[in-house]
């Protein structure tokens, strides 16, 4: 019979046949290895069997089974047997969502449910009930006082929802009834109990279709929003989010697209989070950037406006008016017609091309700001639309007037007109970026100018360079500080293999310990220290054990109780004499000697000049590597620190 751990394990469990058991017993008589293995297996079996057993209280067991719907399935309520849910996720999601209020509607805004019938009799209002709260009905089975498990509530008085006609599933006991009505719950709205039927589709389970029966969190305003098939009627809420709403008949028939009402009802598209660069309209003509107006409209010549703008820029440079807006304001009042306040039915209806550009995420305002010559001059209606859209943009927040300084993004330095004019690049002067025209447009502008594109968000490469420089400097400071600290208070990591004696094949010491305060009489090599400072310890005994398949000899000095972690220093005097200095530790009276034939032949206490605390001299039979560390008290063994030396 061959030695086999599987056979030993099976024999220990009594799963072997009689013949195999007899063979194993005869084998164990002669095989020491298998006897040792059998002893180990028994020890491990005992350790596992001695783990603490848990006794679940009766009430807890009932609550746990109720939560798992085991008991509820065994006790059908007045409405009949409860069908199992489609899946655990759906049912447990409902369990999670129902008890608490809507996390995003904590203020109770618009939380009046609809289609909820009054219960009979009404349940008492919960004092701390939220806007919408689902609680267990009061007439349900008593719940353990320690627990509040949300359970199914038998509601015989409530009107039962008509269940869809389900196929006969009697042939499959595990088949669930699709579309079966969900649980009935008592719902309190601001403390007033109401009864209703929670539709699984409303809870996001997706187990049933159809319109929701209870719309928790959806207020009457949302339910009664006047929306027709094609157009959204402006309401008070829509003031903050302007919608391009052409007047009836403003669009040609080919632009109407009656088959896409959803897009018509959507608000005006703001800047896309990651717009396609190709969606930016190319330069239509010199000085005019963007999609422009439809081709049907004639292109207006702007030489007079350019001249006036140049004059205005020169004046602003002379007068020190560094604000571009002032230059614009000096030109526009006499030239630009009065702008509408906002887009919409009261304003000028945008042409279809603008609508298409808006749907693609293009902002006419941003493109108009790309160059000075066409500021507010070439396309008055377009500029009016742009600035109006900028003021009423949901991203803009508060409206900025043109003569107000706009907050610039971090790292963005707009080119002032005066400086630009002085540099001869007035036509490249750029106003502060529009909030609807983020970095993507500037990327395109810079790429056209041959400059490196700006980072997303408006940060310049210079700012990134500065940030990276600061980060590198901080990292260097931290590393220098860590290095200084490490070299001043050297404490090797416990368990590292270092410090081989001279003459051995091991790796030489990498971070030797600074010598003690008084120079020792013996110059040790390959010193290693661990621990910091401790006192009150005394060596009680020493233990020895083989680990890692017999390749490592562990010498463990068991210390008594003390304070702190004693500092242990080891070092070699020659290749086969290991000194162990334990500062703050008193030497033991008698220390057990290692068994014969091991790597360590003797352990003797000694006294060395310059050493403090207990000193032990370990004689080795050959050169070895040593690594050591401190261990705190063992949960199964004696308390106190232990000095572990691994010799290999």
């Amino acid at each position, binding site marked *: 019979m061959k030695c086999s751990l599987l056979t030993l394990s099976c024999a220990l469990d009594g799963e072997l046949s009689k013949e195999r058991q007899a063979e194993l017993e005869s084998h164990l008589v002669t095989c020491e290895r298998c006897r040792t293995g059998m002893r180990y297996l028994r020890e491990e079996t005992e350790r*596992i069997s001695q783990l603490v057993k848990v006794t679940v209280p009766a009430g*807890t067991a009932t609550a746990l089974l109720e939560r798992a719907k085991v008991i509820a399935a065994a006790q059908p309520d007045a409405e009949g047997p409860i069908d199992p849910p489609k899946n655990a996720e759906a049912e447990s999601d409902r369990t999670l969502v129902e008890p608490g209020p809507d996390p995003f509607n904590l203020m109770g805004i618009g939380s009046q449910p609809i289609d909820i019938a009054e219960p009979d009799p009404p349940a008492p209002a919960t004092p701390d009930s939220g806007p919408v709260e689902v609680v267990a009905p009061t007439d349900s089975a008593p719940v353990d006082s320690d627990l509040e498990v949300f359970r199914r509530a038998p509601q015989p008085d409530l009107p039962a929802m008509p269940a869809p006609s389900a196929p006969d599933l009697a042939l499959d006991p595990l088949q669930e009834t699709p579309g079966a009505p969900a649980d009935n719950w008592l719902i309190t709205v601001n403390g007033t109990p109401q009864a209703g039927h929670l539709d699984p589709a409303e809870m996001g389970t997706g187990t049933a279709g159809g319109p929701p029966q209870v719309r928790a969190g959806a207020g009457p305003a949302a339910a009664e929003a006047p929306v027709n098939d094609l157009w959204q009627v402006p309401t008070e809420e829509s003031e903050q989010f302007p919608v391009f709403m052409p007047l009836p008949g403003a669009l040609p028939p080919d632009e109407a697209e009656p088959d896409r009402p959803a897009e018509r009802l959507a608000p005006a598209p703001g800047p896309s989070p990651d717009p396609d660069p190709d969606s930016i309209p190319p330069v239509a003509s010199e000085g005019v950037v963007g999609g422009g107006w439809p081709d049907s409209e004639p292109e207006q010549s702007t030489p007079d406006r350019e001249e006036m703008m140049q004059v205005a820029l020169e004046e602003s440079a002379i007068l020190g008016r560094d604000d571009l807006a002032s230059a614009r304001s000096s030109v526009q009042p006499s030239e630009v017609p009065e702008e509408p306040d906002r887009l919409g039915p009261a304003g000028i209806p945008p042409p279809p091309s603008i609508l298409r550009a808006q749907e693609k995420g293009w902002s006419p305002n941003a493109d108009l700001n790309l160059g000075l010559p066409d500021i507010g001059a070439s396309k008055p209606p377009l500029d009016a639309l742009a600035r109006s859209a900028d003021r009423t943009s949901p991203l803009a927040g508060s409206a900025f007037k043109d003569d107000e300084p706009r907050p610039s993004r971090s790292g963005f330095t707009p080119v002032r007109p005066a400086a630009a004019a002085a540099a001869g690049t007035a036509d490249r002067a750029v106003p502060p970026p529009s909030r609807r025209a983020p970095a993507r447009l500037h990327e395109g502008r810079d790429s056209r100018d041959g400059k490196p594109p700006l980072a997303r968000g408006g940060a310049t490469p210079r700012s990134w360079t500065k940030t990276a420089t600061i980060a590198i400097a901080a990292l260097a400071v931290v590393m220098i500080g860590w290095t200084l600290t490490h070299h001043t208070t050297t404490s090797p990591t416990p368990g590292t293999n270092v410090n081989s004696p001279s003459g051995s094949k091991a790796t030489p010491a990498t971070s030797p310990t600074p010598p003690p305060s008084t120079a020792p009489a013996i110059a040790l090599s390959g010193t290693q220290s661990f621990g910091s400072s401790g006192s009150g310890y005394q060596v009680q005994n020493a233990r020895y054990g083989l680990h890692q398949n017999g390749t490592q000899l562990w010498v463990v000095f068991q210390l008594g109780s003390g304070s702190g972690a004693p500092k242990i220093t080891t070092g070699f005097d020659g290749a086969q004499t290991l000194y162990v200095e334990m500062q703050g530790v008193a030497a033991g009276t008698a220390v057990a000697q290692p068994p014969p034939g091991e790597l360590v032949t003797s352990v003797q206490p000694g006294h060395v000049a310059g050493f403090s605390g207990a000193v032990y001299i370990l004689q080795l039979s050959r050169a070895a590597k040593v690594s050591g560390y401190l261990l705190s008290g063992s949960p199964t063994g004696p308390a106190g620190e232990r000095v572990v030396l691994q010799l290999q």
Partner: protein
Amino acid sequence: MNTVLERPQTAASTLEDFARQHLDALVTYAIHLTGTPEEAVEYVTAGMFYARHFPPASLQRDGRAILYRAVTRAARQHQHFPPQRKGVARLFSKRPPLISLGSSAADANRINTAKRALLATEFSRRSALLLRDLAKLSYREIGVALECSPEAASRLVAAARREFGSIYRDISI
């Protein structure tokens, strides 16, 4: 002729009986399998929930092993019951009250060398070791619980004992 099986509600009483009979052992197994009483309760609850879907015949045939199978599957796949919310909404979700297991669970949760070694072993080996030495299941029952053959269960138990013993002796000095 169609063979009409009994409805699951009929077997629920059997499941309840099984569950009440072996609930202590199941919770003990789950606590030592997962390391935390809270997760253990959630896994046991999830296992009970899924055990409702087991056919009555398998419940009668496999008995407690099928309950251990359900709990083991829940623990292996981290199926909490009720499920843990994901995303930002979990910060606002109201957790159901925890089921208190009493002082015995705290004792079982106390870490010692054996538990450290046990938690350091691989999941399937840990479960096999607990099923054999703690729950005292046979190899056939372990095979049902771990969804493998009895021979594979025996090899799993042997390997688990070897790994557990090796780790225990390494950390117990």
